[in-house]
């Protein structure tokens, strides 16, 4: 446990001692902010036109626009999409850098277990993602300040994002453990994450047998309910399964790399 914490803390230091962390956080906040702003502007405009129309026709034909449905749900989808692009940049160095710098020799010759390493590093990736998400909470606070959306769906959405991010970090960590080249790690994690995202498309043209499998595998299918503010243990189970699979593969890849070295 103490060793896991040591690995975790060292990893957090590596993040914040390098300029990458600040660039990534800034970029993420700006892009999420831009998406949020465009979406909100569209929403406000629709609201305004709606008001105009209803005053003209005496309260008739009023569209039902809802902050939760038309701002918050798309917002969570957007954040998930942007995370797909940004998270590989966070996870790429998690293990590849240790291999490149030769510090794996330190890790393997001190009484640290592979489990300590995998959990510590995964945790660091997830906490970094939480730090990335923190500034975006402000955008939602604005909605609460000027409107009255339901708060629980927002919390559910963030829970979904954390699970979604945790899964991508696990996938990225695995890919990073396969190579000592950070660029390859980033491209590989992005490719695999994207594939996990769009694999449901394959369900459209595959047989009855495979279609439900592809649909189940798709990472975004399980995100929908969270974004809408619905908590379903089925989706929770999916993300936990994906996280443990990624960590298990990382574990195996680290163990086997020592035999092949």
């Amino acid at each position, binding site marked *: 446990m*103490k*060793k896991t*914490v*040591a*690995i975790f*803390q*060292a990893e957090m*230091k*590596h993040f914040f*001692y*390098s300029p990458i962390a600040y660039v990534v956080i800034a970029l993420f906040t700006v892009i999420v902010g831009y998406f949020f702003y465009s979406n909100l502007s569209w929403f406000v405009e629709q609201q305004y036109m709606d008001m105009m129309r209803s005053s003209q026709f005496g309260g008739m034909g009023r569209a039902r626009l809802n902050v939760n449905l038309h701002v918050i749900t798309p917002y969570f989808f957007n954040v998930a999409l942007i995370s797909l692009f940004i998270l590989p940049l966070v996870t790429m160095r998690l293990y590849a850098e240790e291999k490149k*710098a*030769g*510090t*794996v*020799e*330190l*890790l*393997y*010759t*001190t*009484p*640290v*277990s592979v489990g300590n390493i995998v959990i510590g590093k995964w945790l660091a990736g997830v906490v970094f993602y939480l730090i990335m998400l923190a500034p975006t909470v402000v955008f939602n606070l604005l909605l609460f300040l000027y409107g009255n959306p339901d708060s629980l769906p927002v919390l559910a959405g963030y829970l979904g994002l954390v699970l979604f991010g945790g899964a991508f970090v696990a996938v990225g960590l695995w890919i990073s453990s396969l190579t000592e080249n950070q660029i390859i790690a980033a491209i590989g994690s992005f490719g695999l994450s994207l594939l996990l995202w769009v694999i449901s498309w394959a369900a459209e043209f595959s047989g009855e047998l495979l279609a439900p499998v592809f649909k189940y595998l798709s990472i975004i299918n399980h995100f929908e309910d969270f974004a809408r503010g619905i908590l379903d243990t089925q989706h929770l189970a999916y993300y936990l399964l994906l996280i443990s699979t990624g960590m298990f593969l990382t574990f195996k890849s680290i163990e086997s790399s*020592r*035999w092949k*070295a």
Partner: protein
Amino acid sequence: MIEVQKLTRYYGETLAIEDVSFQVGKGEIVGLLGPNGAGKTTTMRIITGYMPPTSGTAKINGYDVLEEPQEVKRRLGYLPENPPLYPDLRVSEYLAFVARLKEIPSGEIERAIDQVIEKAALQEVRHKVIGALSKGYRQRVGLAQALLNDPPVLILDEPTVGLDPRQIIEIRELIKALAGEHTVVLSTHILPEVEMTCQRVVIINDGRVVAEDTPENLTTRASGNLRIMLEIQGDGSRATQLIKQMPGVQMVQEQSPEVNGHLKLLVECERDLRSEIARTIVENGFSLFELTAEKYSLEDIFLKLTTQEEVLEE
């Protein structure tokens, strides 16, 4: 303390080491000596549990490296060929990180770090970022890391690489001071280093152990005959004749005459005949200027052993 039995390791198809066996007793300093690529690093990596052998066993304190790696690693300090450093951390942060990996209790970490910083003479750079340090300092941070937790066994892969002469002397003194309480295995291809620091030498060439003994024994054993160098004045051929007749002398060779009329003779004999030769020379009216027994240096032995091996292979 360290028992290495018939270690063999392949990298894919390439044989790195074959049947490497040696033992190191408690408190001993043993040097692994060999040319680059001989298999020193591979052997050390197996002993430290960094990589498994293809076959054979390595035991530390009776714990098998493969079966009880955690127990082995708890008793080990390892300085790899390239010190495993994080360039973005400060020296103190790095050492604190390693201390936690090595299971030093939180309350003792500060003291443990103070100790190794003093041992490796890192006081000046304690709060500096590792990436900004010179090669010599980095090597010492690596050494400090290995010394943390005061492990009974130290495995040091080329500990003096990249240091300046003064630092090399300091590190050698430090390693010598560690003997007794610590068992040390160090690798090097610098011969004087072995002669100065190690009690025993294991010479590895092409993945095999070609010799194992104390530096002194190695030099005397391999030399076989004693070579004596004489500097005299007088008739060279007569002197040669005289010495040749002495029992135990195998060969006398006249070296090229020197400017001031002195002659140099090289005598090879079975045992130490220095006093007999001196008497003969003086009694026969020669002037004796110099008489020295030439020792084979470890360097000669090393070259002899490692080149012989190559000849055999061809």
